[in-house]
Structures are given as structure tokens and as C-alpha cells.
């Protein structure tokens, strides 16, 4: 049996989680997930500004902090902290933790290859809209292939203490150690599906140990010290989801079910670079307190194409707010919204989108929310987006004047007008997997 823990569900997750996982009980592998879809464009910009950057900057100091425990306890780290510059990330880890052996997985970054790929007839069409990539031309800010678990296993086979990848799938961080330790083959579809589903369960950190859980949430113990998840994986593909003894939170089949369904599409076809996993085959069993056994998982052959994550400069947006107080707060906020829209039209400004919410009334649930009786206050929240920075900037000047020239009791403008933010949008595409060749390097 091997123990694989997840100590980071996204870049910005709890800094203490990976430290506690290493210190509070036995684990063999520590998986850390840093990359959301839009993170790649952020790190690509950082790299353009400084060739030594372009990775998750929280990661090297973390490894520096736990380097001694990793070595003493024999814990290996697998992380997609490399962003678009895994080698620079590895060098910084080596600087802060010189006794650790560090390997990187390269080959996912396609940014420089886009013109060549287009020229050779790859459309890289948007998976959601079908538009060809050529339509966003020179506005591309990053392009990465989602790579799977086998390159991570290859990196672990170098004897590395820390494996750093760029854009690998979140689930590969968990499956990679299983492939490495159990020698699973590229066509062991059921086993690969089992490891993939184990990865899906723990990839969002504490979301499978009682975090964001709707089942009797008040009774979940000691959430301040919530334990992050651990998978105890067997060579036959069965595994137990658990957490360290004495930590807070709860691992129960109800909690695991919620996470299994999180960000799920067609449950019979959960597609990864390694296999297609069938979520309708999963069998869950509560075997002990805070221990859920998962078995009977089936999978099918991996797809011929890899998913490509491309980001591009879309335009600009701004979101502004004003608060109206009782009485008739909602009615006043609605009147203010009509006035703003009329003034924007009068200025001849056109936006790709204007969106209004009444915070405290319908912001989260829209028409599904029950209408409250005359509420004590309502926040008017108006957002616009468009291609023109100038137009979006002009919008940001239209809210505060309403305090004096609109309906009564407008307030809550203390932070001034809202900032104009650049919008980097996401473009998912497919590419034949033969085009993506990964390689492993040990960084000295």
C-alpha cells in the first residue's frame, strides 16, 4: 500500500496544509496542484517580464520549509508548480533545498509552436464554439497541452525527491506515483481509471474531507484544523480515502460523493490523457470512521488527442457597486440600474455585456431565490465588459454620481470607482497526441 496525499487544491490554497500532511502522520507522496485554467497566462506574462519567473512562486519556499521532513520521512513531492518555466522553478527549489534531488517534466508548453502547428493544418478550434484559432491571431498569451501521469512516473523513476511539471492534469499528480510504484502499463485501463478517480477525489484538497460540504455541515468537527486528504492505494486499483488521525473534518461516503460529482461532465466518459474513466462503476463503502473504501472502477482506452489549454487577450471589464438602504431598497437599486443604462446609451457606449445583480436579493441564485420582504439594504452591482478599455473606464465614472443625482439613500462608495481589469480568456482545443513529446530532466 502507498499513501498519496493532496496538500494544495489550487494556487492560493491553505499554506499550512502540506506542512501538516508531512508532519502529522505517514505519507509516501505529497501531490500539490497549482494550476487553474487561467493561471498559465499569468505565469506566461511573468516569464516574459523576467526569464527566471513563470512558475508558482509559493512552491519553492514551501519545499524549503519542509525539506528536512521530506528527506527524513522519505516523502516525495509531485507538483504542477512549474507553470511555463519548470526549470527555473526547479533551480529555485534547489537553491532553497540543496539536498533534494529535483526532476522536471517538459514538453507541455506549445506557446512558441502555435504558428507552426497552424501552418501544418491543425485548426486548434475552440471546443465550445468551433471557431478556428486563427480568429484570435496575435492575441494568444499561452498554450499548453494537458499531459498525463506517465511522464510523472518516469520522473519519479529518476529517484527525484521533488517532481515538477507544467500543465499536467490534476489527476495525474495522484496517478503518477501509482504507475511508478506498481508498474501499471499504458493499457491497464481499469487500473489507470482507478488512479484517475482517486486523483479526482483528492485534487481539490479538503473538499473531500468536509470542506464545502452540505451534509450536516454544522456537525463537521474542528474545521479550523481540517485534515487534507490521503489515498491509501493498493496494487489492484482499490483504495481508501482518509486523513490523518486527530485532524478536523470528516471523510464519509456522502462527502466523497459530493466531490466525485464536482466539475463532472458525462460520468461514463471522464476523459484524461491516460484513460477514459467510468464514474458509474464506482463502489463506495464506509469501512471505518473517516475511511471510505473505493473499488470496482472500470475504464477504457485513452483518446487519440490531447486537450490544449490556450489563453488570449479578450478585452476589459469593470464591476461597480452602490448600496441602497431601507425603505424600498430594491426598488431604488432597480431605478438606479435603469438610470445607469440610460446614461451609458446616451453616451453612445456599447459593451459586449452589461450585467446587473441585486446583492442580498438575487446575486447567487437569480430567479431561484425567494423574494425577501423589503430588505434592510441592497447592493446594486453592475458589470460591463468590452473590447475598448476607454469605454469600460468611462463606465466606472457613472456609479458614484448617482449618490447625489439618483434615487435616495445611495451609499457604500468609499473605495472610489472600480478598477478596469484586463480579461484573459480561455480557449480549449484538441491536438493529436503525437505532436506533444514530453521529456524528463534532472535539474542540478
Amino acid at each position, binding site marked *: 500500500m502507498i499513501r498519496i496525499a493532496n496538500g494544495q487544491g489550487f494556487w492560493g490554497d491553505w499554506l499550512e496544509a502540506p506542512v501538516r500532511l508531512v508532519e502529522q502522520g505517514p505519507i509516501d507522496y505529497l501531490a500539490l496542484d497549482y494550476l487553474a485554467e487561467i493561471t498559465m497566462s499569468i505565469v506566461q506574462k511573468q516569464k516574459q517580464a523576467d526569464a527566471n519567473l513563470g512558475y508558482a512562486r509559493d512552491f519553492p519556499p514551501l519545499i524549503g520549509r519542509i525539506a528536512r521532513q521530506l528527506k527524513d520521512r522519505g516523502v516525495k513531492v509531485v507538483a504542477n508548480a512549474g507553470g511555463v518555466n519548470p526549470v527555473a522553478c526547479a533551480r529555485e527549489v534547489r537553491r532553497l533545498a540543496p539536498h533534494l534531488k529535483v526532476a522536471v517534466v517538459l514538453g507541455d508548453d506549445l506557446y512558441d509552436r502555435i504558428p507552426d502547428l497552424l501552418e501544418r493544418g491543425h485548426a486548434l478550434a475552440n471546443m465550445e464554439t468551433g471557431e478556428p484559432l486563427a480568429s484570435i491571431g496575435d492575441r494568444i498569451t499561452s498554450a499548453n497541452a494537458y499531459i498525463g501521469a506517465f511522464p510523472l512516473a518516469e520522473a519519479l523513476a529518476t529517484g527525484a525527491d521533488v517532481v515538477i511539471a507544467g500543465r499536467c492534469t490534476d489527476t495525474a499528480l495522484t496517478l503518477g506515483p501509482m504507475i511508478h510504484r506498481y508498474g501499471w502499463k499504458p493499457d491497464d485501463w481499469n487500473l489507470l481509471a482507478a488512479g484517475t478517480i482517486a486523483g479526482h477525489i483528492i485534487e481539490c484538497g479538503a473538499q473531500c474531507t468536509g470542506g464545502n460540504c452540505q451534509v450536516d455541515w454544522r456537525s463537521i468537527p474542528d474545521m479550523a484544523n481540517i485534515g487534507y486528504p490521503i489515498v491509501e492505494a493498493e496494487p489492484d486499483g482499490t483504495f481508501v480515502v482518509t486523513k490523518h488521525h486527530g485532524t478536523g473534518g470528516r471523510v464519509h461516503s456522502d462527502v466523497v460523493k459530493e466531490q466525485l*460529482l464536482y*466539475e463532472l461532465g458525462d460520468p461514463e466518459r471522464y476523459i484524461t490523457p491516460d484513460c477514459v474513466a467510468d464514474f*458509474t462503476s464506482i463502489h463506495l463503502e464506509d469501512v471505518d470512521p473517516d475511511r471510505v473504501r473505493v473499488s470496482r472502477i472500470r475504464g477504457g482506452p485513452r483518446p487519440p488527442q490531447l486537450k490544449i489549454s490556450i489563453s488570449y487577450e479578450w478585452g476589459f471589464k469593470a464591476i461597480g457597486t452602490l448600496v441602497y438602504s431601507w425603505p424600498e431598497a430594491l426598488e431604488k437599486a432597480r431605478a438606479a440600474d435603469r438610470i445607469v443604462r440610460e446614461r451609458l446609451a446616451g453616451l453612445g457606449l456599447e459593451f459586449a455585456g452589461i450585467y446587473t445583480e441585486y446583492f442580498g436579493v438575487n446575486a447567487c441564485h437569480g430567479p431561484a431565490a425567494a423574494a425577501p420582504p423589503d430588505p434592510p439594504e441592497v447592493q446594486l*452591482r453592475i458589470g460591463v465588459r468590452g473590447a475598448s478599455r476607454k469605454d469600460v473606464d468611462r463606465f466606472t465614472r457613472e456609479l458614484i454620481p448617482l449618490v447625489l443625482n439618483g434615487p435616495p439613500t445611495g451609499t457604500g462608495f468609499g473605495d472610489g470607482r472600480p478598477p478596469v481589469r484586463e480579461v484573459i480568456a*480561455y480557449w480549449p482545443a484538441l491536438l493529436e497526441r503525437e505532436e506533444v513529446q514530453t521529456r524528463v530532466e534532472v535539474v542540478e
Partner: protein
Amino acid sequence: MKIPLSRIAHARSGDKGDTVNIGVIAYDPARHYQTLLREVTPERVKAHFGELVRGNVVRYELANLGALNFLLFEALNGGGTLSLRTDAQGKTFGAALLGMEIEDPESV
């Protein structure tokens, strides 16, 4: 008699681009999975969210977990970084669906 869906099920929701997914899970699958199948149809889910969901609603069945998975298309004002919504990631759609009224399975 009507009861809220929250009486027999829990849920979690998330995003993929402009699409929201909602997993709806029976607390007691043996008693209530069939109720979910009968009461929580794609048509009723779409109607529950009204103008918030501009596209289709598709339902998948996971009998092994006593759960249904719904995909709500064009539900996040463009999704991701484009979205102007407070809940741009659809985190609260699951809770919203649990407020839907269904026929009390004990009275059917």
C-alpha cells in the same frame, strides 16, 4: 404535499467554462433515488433557474451513487474570467436547486 428537495438530497456544483454542473445526491438512495429520477427532470431544473440558464439542461444518471449529474449550458454569463456574476464559478447553484419543491415521496 410539497417538500423542498433539500429534505431528501444534498448537492455540489461547479463550472466548466460557461457550463455549470450540479451533482444531486440522495441521502438514502434505496428510498429516494427513484424519487430523484421522477421529480428532478432537466425540464424542471431549467424552469427553476429561469433566465439564469440560457442554454439546455442535460441529465446523467449515477445509480451506483444514488445521484444525478446535471449540466446547465450558458449559465455563467460567459464563464471564467469573462463572467460578470458574483458566483462566476457556479458554486452556489447546487444550494439553489435544493430549494426546488418536489412532491413528497411519502405522499405519492
